[in-house]
């Protein structure tokens, strides 16, 4: 105790530059305000009011991130808050990216909440908190801060995944995500500990500095630390073989959450992943590059191949997001400034495409959020041409067709890999893209083929949980409960309503907020596909502080 007191006698207060964490403060402030107000008023908050506040918060953090960007452009990158936070183009870009994701997801979520008659601010509050975590990960300059961001991001996402209390799948997704996520977090912390043991610091630039100044006689400890950190990050970004949670969670979570999760968790995860590996462990490149190489190759191929056999659109896109993670890993694997640039650009374009895609799926999924069989998309073009063309654009973008942002994104990371000497990986990437094109185009083909969906499939198969057959969920949650077959969940009413609602659902008209979000996503995908200069310039300038 006395030793503690003696130590505390010389407290040196760090200089807190609040403006350097302003986007985080804005996001958390918005969340706290929403939560507080909702607790104080007697009636449940109006959904449009909640959405408005969320959108305003997102715009606020977007503008603060842009201010940070301008600040970095004018005054150069720097560290703040005693070296715990870094301000560089990279962090500002992640801030912009995450803010955009919140904005879009809030719009999609608004329509979803109205349709599912979910009220209250919890959905948006959790989203804002989770986004704050992602932004923290983007500007973390210390492994401990990375972990802090990771947990803020993840815990909110666990709850979001389980948010749809009516569908048992959703709860299961949340629980699975939670268990595996905490498991991987533990591994991650162990990695931090080992790294600290090897280098005597958790500060990212100091680690790099230490490695530059010292020759490690026994690098085993550090290498083990790197390996465990790699596991933690790979889990977060859903890289093979740490991806196993992804399909179940993506499928089970409410569809707007899936879109948000796919975008923000990947953005935050990769932001820290890139910074830690390229900046701090840059000198250990020869040690981690082969490992990342293998992980990237596996991720690319497995994501593309398994997506081929999926019948459920959400599950298919889950595997496709695994494939995308592989592409970003290629940029990481190159370990160069060009690779980082490519990876960032990829993340940026991917965010819009994936949120837009899941927005479309939300609409098509219908009331109860359960109609995700591929068959639902047959003839969508006739029922809702606008929706079909939007989905087509977004899918083609994901497939990397020229004149969409996806094309240039793939080109950038692959050319980064080639210039980094990883030609074989580039070939693997192109092969996987070719395989992936098949299942994207299959959906497009279905949408533009004639005929109505075979409704029996979804109507007879236990209502909203109808597609559970592909997701065999044996006693994963609690050993005594067999969940196989998707029991009605809370869907008693909804399940029987499916057949009656069929006509209404076949019309498939997106609500206004979702329509706005989809248009934004499609617009970004097409406009910056035709005119890529601003976005590539943005990614090009968004350099890491050290690399």
């Amino acid at each position, binding site marked *: 105790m006395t030793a503690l007191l003696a130590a505390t006698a010389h407290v040196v207060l760090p200089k807190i530059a609040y403006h350097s964490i302003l986007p985080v403060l804005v996001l958390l402030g918005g969340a706290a305000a929403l939560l507080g107000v909702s607790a104080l008023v007697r009636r449940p908050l109006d959904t449009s009011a909640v959405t408005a506040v969320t959108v305003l918060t997102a715009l606020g953090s977007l503008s603060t991130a842009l201010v940070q960007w301008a600040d970095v452009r004018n005054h150069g990158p720097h560290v703040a808050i005693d070296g715990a936070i870094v301000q560089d183009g990279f962090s500002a870009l992640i801030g912009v990216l995450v803010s955009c994701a919140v904005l879009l997801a809030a719009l999609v979520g608004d329509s979803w909440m109205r349709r599912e008659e979910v009220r209250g601010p919890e959905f948006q509050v959790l989203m804002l908190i989770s986004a704050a975590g992602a932004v923290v990960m983007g500007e973390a300059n210390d492994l401990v801060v990375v972990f802090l961001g990771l947990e803020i991001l993840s815990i909110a996402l666990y709850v979001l995944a389980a948010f749809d209390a009516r569908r048992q799948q959703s709860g299961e997704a949340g629980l699975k995500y939670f268990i*595996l996520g905490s498991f991987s977090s533990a591994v991650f912390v162990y990695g931090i500990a080992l790294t600290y043991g090897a280098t005597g610091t958790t500060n990212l630039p100091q680690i790099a500095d230490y490695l530059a100044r010292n020759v490690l006689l026994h690098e*085993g400890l550090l290498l083990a630390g790197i390996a465990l950190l790699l596991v933690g990050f790979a889990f977060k970004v859903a890289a093979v*073989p*740490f991806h196993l949670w992804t399909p179940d969670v993506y499928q089970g979570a409410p569809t707007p959450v899936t879109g948000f999760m796919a975008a923000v968790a990947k953005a935050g995860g990769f932001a820290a992943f890139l910074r830690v590996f390229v900046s701090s462990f840059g000198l250990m490149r020869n040690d981690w590059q082969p490992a990342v190489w293998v992980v990237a190759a596996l991720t690319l191929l497995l994501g593309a191949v398994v997506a*081929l056999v999926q019948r459920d659109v959400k599950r298919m896109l889950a595997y496709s997001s695994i494939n995308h993670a592989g592409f970003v890993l290629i940029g990481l694997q190159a370990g160069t400034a060009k690779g980082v640039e490519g990876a960032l650009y990829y993340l940026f374009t991917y965010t819009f495409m994936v949120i837009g895609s899941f927005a479309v799926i939300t609409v098509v999924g219908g009331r109860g959020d359960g109609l995700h069989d591929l068959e639902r998309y047959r003839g969508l073009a006739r029922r809702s041409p606008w929706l079909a063309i939007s989905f087509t654009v977004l899918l083609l973008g994901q497939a990397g067709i020229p004149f969409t942002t996806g094309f240039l994104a793939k080109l950038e990371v692959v050319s980064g890999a080639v210039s980094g000497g990883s030609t074989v990986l580039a070939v693997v990437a192109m092969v996987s893209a070719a395989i992936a094109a098949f299942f994207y185009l299959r959906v497009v083909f279905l949408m533009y083929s004639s005929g109505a969906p075979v409704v029996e499939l979804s109507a007879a198969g236990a209502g909203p949980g109808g597609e559970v057959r592909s997701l065999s969920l044996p006693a994963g949650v609690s050993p005594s409960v067999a969940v196989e077959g998707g029991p009605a969940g809370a869907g008693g009413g909804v399940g029987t309503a499916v057949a009656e609602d069929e006509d209404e659902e076949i019309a498939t008209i997106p609500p206004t907020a979702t329509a706005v979000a989809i248009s934004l996503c499609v617009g970004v995908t097409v406009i910056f596909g035709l005119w890529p*200069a601003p976005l590539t*310039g943005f990614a090009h300038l968004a350099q890491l502080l050290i690399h």
Partner: protein
Amino acid sequence: MIHAAFLVFLLPLAGAAVLALGGRRLGDPLAGWVGTAGVAGAFVAACVTTGGLLSRAAPARSFDQTLFTWIPVGGLNVKAALLVDPLSMTMALFVTGVSTLIHLYSIGYMRGDEDYPKFFLYLNLFVASMVILVMGDNLLFTFVGWEGVGVCSYWLIAFWFGRPSAASAGKKAFLYNRLADVGFLLAIFLVFERTGTLQYHGIFAHLGAIGPSSRTAICLLLFAAAAGKSAQLPLFPWLADAMEGPTPVSALIHAATMVTAGVYLMCRINPILHTSHPAQLVVASVGAATAFVAATIGCAQDDIKKVLAYSTVSQLGYMFLAVGTGAYEAAIFLMVAHAFFKAELFLGAGSVIHGLDDEQDLKRMGNLRRWMPLTFGTFVFGWLAIAGIPPLAGFWAKGDVLDNAWARFPVLWVVGLVTAALTAYYMSRLSALAFWGDDRWREVLARPAGATGSGGHPGHDAHPHEAPWVMGVPLVVLALLSFVGGALLLPWRPGAPLHWLAPVFGGRLYDAHLSGTTQWVLGVVDAAVAVLGVAVALPLWSRRPVHDRLEPEALKRAWFLDDVYDAVIGRPSQAAARFAATVVDVQVIDGAVNGVGRLARGAGSGLRRVQTGFVRQYALGIVVGAVALLAFMASRVW
């Protein structure tokens, strides 16, 4: 002032955007006026820009206007930028100027068409593309315009796609052009590979990096593209079929502007072309040959627009002859003069067609000078100009080309001179058949009226009617320009307006060194040949409309070129396609694809089994992965 350059293509584009969004609401004829306003604005902007350019000293008359960085990928950094120099502004001026007149004319001509706004949408889009083509600062941006005009011409030729002939003519034009565009693309690749840039100035600065054979290859590849767009041998058949489009389209695209894109491109790359003599010879020879062949075909055509189409091909041949000679100024001079008189001729022909309720067959016209005095009066200027009668523009322009050819390639000069005689002959034949002779149109107008297009005038007055004023104004203006256009580059005037192009071509401009006497003699010969052609044709054809011996089947069918293509390319490729479809595709490709697909699916189904749904197994997966990584790292230590 010079900074107004971007408006030159933005205004027509804006017009197109307005028409695309609200064309239907604007309706007939407001949509036409909106389109015309966009193009007229572009013309004004071009004038202003040119004024700005002129206010600079002659050597400093080149200006880059960067709009935005378009594609920055690795070493490739392409800007969307405009190059403002005398050559591009000359092109821009006459493209927008002639287009304005043709737009105005179309307001009257297209009245009553159900797709009236769409027509102007395409026209505006076309003008914007054409301006991008001529003002692009790099090969790729030019290519954007190049493809833009290509697709617009496809839409416009096939505008009345209800007729099978129009639809197939559109397709034909598109295919011929696409085939030629391959040359453009290959040239772009080659240039980029050798110089690392696509910007014209950059390429010309790095000429040393391109070997002699590569230069020839680049020139010939670009010439292949130019031959497609400008309808040169052997790629010209599409232009005759393109006359299926509405007549203003024929005038705008297939006489005045688009077809000159090839000539422009060759002039633009003159620093490369100058260093490759083989390429120059090829360009000049193909040009002369095309001029002659097309002129012969023109002598035997019955469709008024087809005669004009072949005459266009022939005149374009002259331009390429000049380009190959190195007489770029002469080429541009002829291009501008040709734009005036050919537009005049087409619009005049359109007026005739309009007046005769869509009759295009020369053999069913005759004696129209009595019924359509304005059309006739203005048509005469176009006719005499293209025939090369002094002092109209055509005489000076063609004379300039031939003088240079005489000095450099005497053999080609002979071909050119013969062609000049033929030109005078077939144009006089056309005029004689249309405006002299008997009233052969009576049976046309006796038909029940209103079956086709031009509506409004039922058959009861039963004689050809003159066009409305919106169609008359362009006719008069263009007739005037055909007359005085020669003043742009009179041989004895050192300060002639077109000499302002000189800085663009610099020392690469061919200097003929002809003495005054030679020039006089050549001029007299030109004039004599022209008069001869007119003198032979006019009495011959105004007396009797049919001379079988003078219209052999070979010429009527364009030297059987279409049949040759059909036999050599069409049928074998159809057979090959059938073979590919039935044998290669089904057995080889499908087999391979299905095999790979089955493999991938098999792998997918197998891997899918890993996904059990049990959290404990997922966790095990993580552990296995982590152990593998740790093992790998351990292997790095030991």
